[in-house]
């Protein structure tokens, strides 16, 4: 273990490091206790359902933290991957609800189709649909990333392009009402792989699945951040050209982070469907995609747990504030974009780190 020999000054270095194994284990244990024991006991069905939704957003945030905080790619297009994952899951659940050989309800209503469109058919297979929720977004991210990163489109260009992709996909989905449900999206989902979603106990089960997924995603992100790849990713963020002169192709490094983030967003979208019961183009467009980013900025873009906590906190604040003062929420949201980014670019996580550093220096002085 190199950590034992670290001189005291190493505290400085923690900005670019993932939490140490010991801290991380405590953290994961704590999170597991909160998510699996405290929350289900303390919250009623309704609030627990809301929490499940927040946790889905947190999963997206972990991916954005990786791509943006560590990789410097401000992706304003995570809604696309969230949507792909969500639609893949919802398509399967709609088919399962309809029963073998039957068309989903909205197709009969609006599409006047006699047969299932060919691209719906594979989603009847549960294994295919489950795999697609994660792999489909990753594939799209891979192809797009290949085109974009290879040509060194980056920074603001990348952000704007990813935003334009959202707008285009949302408009396209809306236009295909007969086969995608249009603006309505896919709604009224009754069952989840045989479990009745109307049953509160099964809804609790969904919550536990989402919570477990969040922990798993955090685990993946932790391993990526502490690995050599994580260090390389930071290097690419801070000096893409310099990395090139070291013999790496930064496009590949970025591509991996981008694809992983897309997979996480896809997973989140897939879980969002049973947790909330709907997926619609409204979750894909420009506005929700940029809203995914606030939580990350507030929580601390480059930290492991910051984006997830930030996303949960912002989503909770949105629910709480918009219940009381709807128009105040928009002002508050505007300020959330402005104040942390301008005055606390490291987010809440950097505040925690600052406090820890102060404590550690003060103990040094006293001892």
């Amino acid at each position, binding site marked *: 273990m190199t950590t034992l020999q670290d001189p005291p000054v190493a505290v400085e270095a923690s900005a670019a490091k993932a939490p140490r194994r010991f801290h991380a284990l405590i953290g994961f244990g704590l999170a597991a206790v909160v998510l699996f024991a405290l929350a289900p006991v303390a919250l009623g069905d309704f609030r627990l359902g809301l929490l499940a939704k927040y946790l889905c957003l947190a999963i997206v945030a972990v991916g954005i933290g990786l791509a943006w905080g560590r990789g410097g790619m401000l992706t304003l297009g995570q809604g696309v991957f969230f949507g792909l994952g969500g639609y893949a899951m919802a398509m399967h659940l709609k088919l399962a609800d309809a029963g073998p050989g039957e068309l989903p309800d909205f197709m009969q209503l609006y599409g006047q189709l006699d047969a299932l469109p060919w691209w719906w058919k594979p989603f009847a297979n549960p294994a295919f649909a489950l795999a697609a929720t994660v792999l489909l977004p990753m594939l799209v991210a891979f192809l797009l990333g290949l085109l974009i990163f290879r040509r060194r489109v980056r920074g603001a260009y990348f952000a704007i392009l990813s935003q334009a992709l959202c707008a285009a996909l949302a408009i396209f989905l809306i236009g295909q009402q007969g086969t995608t449900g249009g603006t309505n999206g896919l709604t009224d989902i009754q069952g989840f792989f045989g479990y009745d979603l*109307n049953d509160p106990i099964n809804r609790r089960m969904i919550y536990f699945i989402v919570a477990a997924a969040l922990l798993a995603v955090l685990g993946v992100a932790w391993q990526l951040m502490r690995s050599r790849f994580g260090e390389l990713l930071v290097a690419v963020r801070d000096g893409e050209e310099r990395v090139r002169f070291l013999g790496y192709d930064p496009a590949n490094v970025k591509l991996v982070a981008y694809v992983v983030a897309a997979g996480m967003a896809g997973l989140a979208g897939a879980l969002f469907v049973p947790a909330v019961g709907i997926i619609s183009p409204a979750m894909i467009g420009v506005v929700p995609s940029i809203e995914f980013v606030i939580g990350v900025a507030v929580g601390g873009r480059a930290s492991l747990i910051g984006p997830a906590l930030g996303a949960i906190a912002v989503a909770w604040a949105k629910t709480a504030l918009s219940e009381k003062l709807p128009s105040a*929420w928009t002002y508050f949201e505007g300020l959330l974009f402005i104040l942390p980014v301008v005055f606390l670019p490291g987010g809440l996580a950097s505040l925690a780190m600052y406090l820890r550093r102060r404590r550690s220096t003060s103990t040094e002085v006293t001892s």
Partner: protein
Amino acid sequence: MFRIRGRRSATIVATVAALAALTACGAKTDDSSSASAAGATIDTSGSSIKVGLLNSLSGTMAISEVTVRDSLKLAIEEINAGGGVLGKQIEPVSEDGASDWPTFAEKSQKLISQDKVAAVFGCWTSASRKAVKPVFEKNKSLLFYPVQYEGLEQSPYIFYTGATTNQQIVPGLDYLKAQGKTSLYLVGSDYVFPRTANKIIKAYAEANGMKVLGEDYAPLGSTEFSTIANKVKAAGASAIFNTLNGDSNVAFFKEYKSAGLTAEKMPVVSVSIAEEEVKSIGTQYLAGQLTAWNYYQTTEGAANEKFVKAYKAKYGADKPTSDPMEAAYTSVYLWKAMVEKAGSFDVEKVKAAAAAGGITYDAPEGKVTVDGPTQHIYKTARIGKVGDDGLIKEVWNSGEPIKPDPYLKGYSWATGLS
């Protein structure tokens, strides 16, 4: 541990099995709120009864939905002043749907399970209604939906107090046909209502010897209409049927006028432009154009005079009243009538009272009657013309309230549409 419905999937069971140990501590079967599966609990303990108002107070739909919320509040105040319902004052709980469909679902769940409301009034877009429909059905709770819509729906837990297609679109087409219009151009926003409406219009046109020369959809919020205006002009139809929504109408009518089209040469029948929208588009662009609704601020009758007067007194003399506002206002009174007939706030009893028939109300739009089987209401169709003063004057009406027919079963040309 879990209640299984239908076949199971091996993969998920495996995943879940791993979680089962963890869930055991959380998912208590005697959890108090799990009783909701049996039906919504309504809190009738106090001296007041809660109802939910679910409208977008922020986001793109706020423009329209705030006016609906205002008229719902007006109706509640009036009822409370008159002694309430079954001796209880109505206590409205207002929630913001934020123009976001999942939020609508979330808030309706909150109104039902946290606030334990007796009924919820609201929603505007079809998308938001589709999003909340499973929530109300699952919890066996009531929603009153006050906006004209595309039909093809009949939820046992929704009362539809706006027009369905045969009370608005079909009369609009009848009017055009009677005026000797032989060809149509269809312009709409890209969402469920215009697409479904246009499908009905095309079927109608085919059966009635009218030609549909073109059909165009603009994304919601789109404000670039020069190409569509060009297409419309080139097609040379004798009328335009307009199902555009919100902002798009402003851009469309400006472009329409720029293209040199006029209400005399190629009139536009709009089904989503009410008094409030006329105000924001401007009579410069709209005067002389047609609308199809069931109510206008100018509709004659004592009930409407009272409604308009009360509304303007509460919210300002410059605030117009419109069809969805009137339907919302009416929906509260209809709910009151049903509850009083049932003698209970219990959802199933209220539904039974409505199903037994005979629930009527002298609404501002005229007498309306709840149709038990469909849970829609009988409404009089009215075609109006936009005047220079920004108000809409009725030029034709159906004479008597039309029986709601959400699936257009009574129209032979409509077979195969649903």
